[in-house]
């Protein structure tokens, strides 16, 4: 058949092939059969066991119920004898009996009813009939023929009313029963027969009632003589047992038969269908003892023959159930996910809702603090204010996180200046670090560096280092004291930031060598993206190994005590992670307990294409006042690294710097400057590190200073400036007395801060010069909007006026509209407005709606233009009407950018106006030179997020520091910058 025809062995035996096939099939069938049997045999044993236990269980249950019933009927007999015979007159009548039996029916679960029939001998018949107003009848409802004695039913339970006045002795089974019962004095059962009324198969239970108490060992005659009547009731075995078994599980799988086995050769069926199909091979018998010793009962259980069908049915039911469950689970999963989203939204909403009243609370607290308060009151109010601020900060964090989770956080590509941002980060932190007493010296460090991630692209180690605060080389110089090759000399978790590299950078003296950087940019010009890597290294307690896995999980801190010791909620790093991932970067860390941690992250930025390199200088001169160019300064610091930092910042301001390691050197330099003509370095400023000053104080610094000053008669005296990380009031006074009347500059250093201080110091002489040097932001921006016509829409007159004033400042012609309707009138095309500022919250029609209508009008006009066919496609497209509309809103959250965009707005500015903000938005629409920035983030978040990220990272370390360095904690931050500037 399917056998492939070959040419060798198979070919030669082809005649045998069909036979071989038949043989094969038979063989396989036999094997299958034997396997089946083997399996079936096992199965059978198991089934038998199961059947046995099920059968026994049923038998036991039936028997128990039966016995309970019998016992209760026994109790009834005692009731009747007690209240009917021992009491005179009888305390029992039909109503009482019926009520009692009905109410106690639950005690006799297997009995469909009970009835009492007194023993009436023929002589008493007439009297009895008269007394009870009834005629004794037979089972066939005929007046009873005369007999020796009767047992007419006198009391009965409600459902048994059909037996009223029936003579129980007239029925064959009942008569037999009665006789047997009164002779034995025990409960007796009839054989199974069709019951009167229901025609179900059943048995009748009969109990004798005695007139008098019988002795314990009474004879049969005594008992018969004492018999007063009989209590009996039918067991409707068929329906009751059915009911009972129905309560048990798995009753469909077996067949139950109950037999009366009194006559062993002729078992009488009591329950179950004799002819029902059953698996005769598998049956189990259980003995039943119903309390009647004369009668024997037996329960026989068999497996239903169609058990496999039943199993299939069961399996199908099970599958359906599982599938239903699955669907239910799926639905629940969807609901759970929806709940999760709802949770985020709820968090965001609630947080936002909390913010509004919190602002009120804080506002009131601020007002309260302005009033006259006792010191205690002030303390309370201040505490409340601090707590409120902490709460707001927390809410903001939660909002951030919720926003990120809800994918609401979108990245905006903006131009930024990395150095300016890092400067800002530092300035935000200087306050915090000063409050905590963390300063930047030899006892540890915090180190931030930013460089290009792909070093291979950078031929030189082109990092432009911005040293934000003085470090020290001490650790390295003091060799042999177990120090490490890091900047502070302390061991760091990540050994890659070695001192050697840093020294190399200082040696290169290439802080501002733009040429090499431009070269690098050029060589790097092929790629569009720039990946920056930011590392933050600290020394301190580090992160316990056990907690390192959880560091990026929200609300997880190293352990529960972290929050108590260092504050924070544990959400910062998880937000950082989200942000970094949004910026297509990665965040990671290396941490060693008791050594410190190094966090690093990468982020991908786009390069600003249209940027012209020459603008770098311009932009730089724009953020830093140029008035200091050509000044000369001497920095007195014994620690070269720290001095290099100071020098770097001064260089940025265009100040020429000489370094000297002690005051002596410095003063001699200055003197030389005065006397010798070849070295013309005449300092305008002398900056002295506080440490040097303190150490030099004893060695007659003041004298030197005084010695030096008179020599300055020809030139202006150099200004003396003290550089300090922290300074007490005493020291400050002393410094002033010691000649530093001019100023003290607090570290960490920032170019802008130095500029401000210098300006202050120098202002007495060259006020004008300096004044001119200060960049005038508004004049810089002036002319941006010259000739542009702008419509301002706001219902608030004051706001309108201020906005108009601000826009006029940029050279624009401004028109105002007090309502959205008025604005729409003004904007009927053709109009001559170049932009529109729209308030969002206005009565009648809000800004969103107004914008929508304006856009509708525009699109209509555009269509007409197209239909007019006056212009070619290309130009038509370009000429399409689209008025830039900027939302003005005080509440940035309410009017999210999304909402603004959705209704056709182009951007928003927050109220009250800030010049920078306004300018930035406007600049987008009226193309002008970019501001001071050189990298355009493509997929990165706004520069602000980078700042925040940096803050989060540094924050992490500032507390690390505080524990490990309890006495005079020092550390220092260095922020080297990307070498593009």
């Amino acid at each position, binding site marked *: 058949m399917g056998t492939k025809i070959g040419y060798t062995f198979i070919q030669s035996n082809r005649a045998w092939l069909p036979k071989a096939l038949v043989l094969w099939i038979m063989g396989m069938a036999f094997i299958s059969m034997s396997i089946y049997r083997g399996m079936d045999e096992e199965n059978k044993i198991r089934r038998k066991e199961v059947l046995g236990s099920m059968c026994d269980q049923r038998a036991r249950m039936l028997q128990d119920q039966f016995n309970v019933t019998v016992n209760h009927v026994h109790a009834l007999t005692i009731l009747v004898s007690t209240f009917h015979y021992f009491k005179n007159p009888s305390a029992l009548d039909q109503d009482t009996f019926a009520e009692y039996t009905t109410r106690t029916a639950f005690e006799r679960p297997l009995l469909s009813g009970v009835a009492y029939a007194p023993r009436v001998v023929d002589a008493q018949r007439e009297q009895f009939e008269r007394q009870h107003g009834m005629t004794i009848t037979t089972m066939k409802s005929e007046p009873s023929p005369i007999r020796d004695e009767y047992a007419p039913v006198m009391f009965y339970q409600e459902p048994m009313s059909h037996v009223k006045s029936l003579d129980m002795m007239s029925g064959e089974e009942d008569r037999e029963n009665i006789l047997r019962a009164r002779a034995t004095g025990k409960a007796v059962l009839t054989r199974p027969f069709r019951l009167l009324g229901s025609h179900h198969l059943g048995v009748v239970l009969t109990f004798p009632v005695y007139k008098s108490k019988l002795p314990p060992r009474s004879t049969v005659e005594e008992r018969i003589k004492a018999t007063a009547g009989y209590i009996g009731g039918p067991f409707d075995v068929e329906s009751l047992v059915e009911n009972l078994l129905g309560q048990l599980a798995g009753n469909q799988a077996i067949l139950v038969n109950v037999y009366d086995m009194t006559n062993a050769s002729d078992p009488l069926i009591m329950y179950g269908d004799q002819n029902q199909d059953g698996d005769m091979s598998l049956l189990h018998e259980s003995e039943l003892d119903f309390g009647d010793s004369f009668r024997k009962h037996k329960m026989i259980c068999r497996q239903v023959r169609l058990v496999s069908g039943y199993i299939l049915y069961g399996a199908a039911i099970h599958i359906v159930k599982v599938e239903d469950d699955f669907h239910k689970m799926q639905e629940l999963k969807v609901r759970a996910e929806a709940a999760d989203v709802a949770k985020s939204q709820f968090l965001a909403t609630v947080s936002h809702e909390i913010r509004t*009243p919190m602002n009120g609370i804080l*506002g009131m607290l601020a007002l309260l603090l302005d009033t006259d308060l006792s010191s205690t009151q002030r303390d309370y109010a201040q505490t409340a204010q601090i707590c409120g601020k902490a709460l707001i900060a927390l809410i903001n964090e939660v909002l951030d996180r919720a926003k990120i989770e809800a994918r609401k956080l979108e990245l905006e590509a903006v131009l930024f200046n990395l150095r300016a941002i890092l400067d800002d980060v530092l300035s935000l932190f200087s306050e915090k670090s000063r409050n905590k007493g963390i300063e930047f010296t030899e006892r540890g460090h915090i180190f931030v560096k930013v460089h290009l991630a792909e070093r291979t692209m950078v031929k030189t180690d082109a990092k432009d280092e911005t040293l934000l605060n003085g470090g020290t080389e001490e650790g390295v110089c003091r060799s042999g004291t177990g120090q490490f090759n890091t900047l502070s000399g302390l061991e760091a978790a990540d050994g890659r930031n070695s001192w050697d590299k840093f020294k190399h950078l200082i040696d290169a003296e290439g802080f501002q060598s733009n040429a090499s950087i431009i070269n690098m940019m050029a060589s790097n010009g092929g790629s569009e993206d720039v990946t920056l890597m930011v590392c933050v290294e600290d020394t301190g307690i580090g992160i316990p190994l056990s907690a390192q896995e959880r560091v990026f999980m929200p609300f997880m801190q190293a352990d529960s005590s972290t929050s108590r010791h260092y504050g924070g909620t544990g959400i910062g790093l998880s937000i950082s992670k989200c942000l970094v991932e949004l910026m297509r970067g990665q965040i990671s860390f290396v941490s060693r307990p008791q050594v410190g941690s190094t966090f690093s992250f990468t982020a991908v930025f786009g390069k600003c294409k249209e940027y012209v390199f020459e603008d770098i200088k311009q932009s730089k001169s724009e953020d830093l006042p140029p008035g200091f160019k050509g000044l000369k300064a001497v920095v007195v610091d014994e620690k070269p690294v720290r001095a290099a930092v100071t020098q770097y910042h001064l260089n940025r301001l265009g100040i020429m710097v000489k370094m000297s390691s002690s005051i002596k050197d410095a003063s001699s330099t200055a003197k030389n400057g005065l006397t010798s003509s070849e070295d013309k370095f005449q300092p305008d400023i002398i900056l002295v590190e506080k440490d040097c000053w303190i150490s030099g104080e004893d060695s007659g610094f003041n004298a030197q200073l005084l010695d030096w000053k008179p020599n300055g008669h020809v030139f202006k005296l150099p200004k003396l400036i003290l550089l300090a990380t922290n300074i007490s009031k005493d020291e400050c006074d002393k410094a002033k007395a010691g000649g530093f009347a001019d100023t003290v500059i607090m570290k960490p250093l920032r170019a802008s801060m130095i500029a401000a201080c210098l300006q202050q110091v120098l202002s007495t002489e060259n006020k004008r010069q300096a004044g001119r040097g200060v960049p005038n932001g*508004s004049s810089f921006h002036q002319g941006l909007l010259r000739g542009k016509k702008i419509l301002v829409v706001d219902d*608030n007159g*004051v706001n309108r006026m201020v906005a108009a004033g601000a826009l006029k400042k940029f050279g624009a012609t401004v028109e105002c509209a007090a309502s959205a309707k008025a604005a729409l009138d003004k904007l009927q095309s053709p109009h001559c407005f170049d932009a529109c500022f729209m308030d969002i*919250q206005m009565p009648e029609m809000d800004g969103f709606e107004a914008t929508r209508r304006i856009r509708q009008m525009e699109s209509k006009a555009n269509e007409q233009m197209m239909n007019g066919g006056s212009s070619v496609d290309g130009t038509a497209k370009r000429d399409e009407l689209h008025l830039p509309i900027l939302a003005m809103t005080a509440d940035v959250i309410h009017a999210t950018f999304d909402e603004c965009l959705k209704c056709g707005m182009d951007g928003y500015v927050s109220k009250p106006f800030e010049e920078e903000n306004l300018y930035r938005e406007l600049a987008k629409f009226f193309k002008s030179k970019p501001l001071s920035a050189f990298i355009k983030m493509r997929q990165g978040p706004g520069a602000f997020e980078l700042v925040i990220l940096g803050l989060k990272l540094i924050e992490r370390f500032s507390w690390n520091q505080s524990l490990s360095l309890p006495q005079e904690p020092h550390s220092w931050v260095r922020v080297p910058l990307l070498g593009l500037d």
Partner: protein
Amino acid sequence: MDVVSQLQKQFIDFSSSLYREGYVDDQFSQLHKLQDESSPDFVVEVASLFFDDAEKLINSMARALEQPCVDFKQVDSHVHQLKGSSSSIGALRVKNVCIAFRSFCDAQNREGCMRCLQQVSHEYTMLKSKLQTLFRMEQQILAAGGSVPLE
């Protein structure tokens, strides 16, 4: 000449006290930046517009709060207006009260609103008298032939 510098000094002291005591904030100085030759009286104009505006708003708030059945929405919209104006001109204290006021409006707390109304009108009166003094000093300096110092 002496008079002018004295006046200038007074002016500087007074105006810095306004900042220090929180009557005005940075926005007010932003406003000054907007003033130039083309609009020499910009600040005064804005301020007087603000005063008119604020007075009207405060009166309507008071009226609305006197009603047996207070329409808090209406009160809130007035407060919102006032908050907008005050933040525009940099009236810090008025703005702060407005923020609290709005939260009372949200909570439909009449008593709190009444308290805030009193406060807001108090702050407003204070601010008005302070600013009027400031402007008068400016006028004096100009009249004496000096120039108004920028901070």
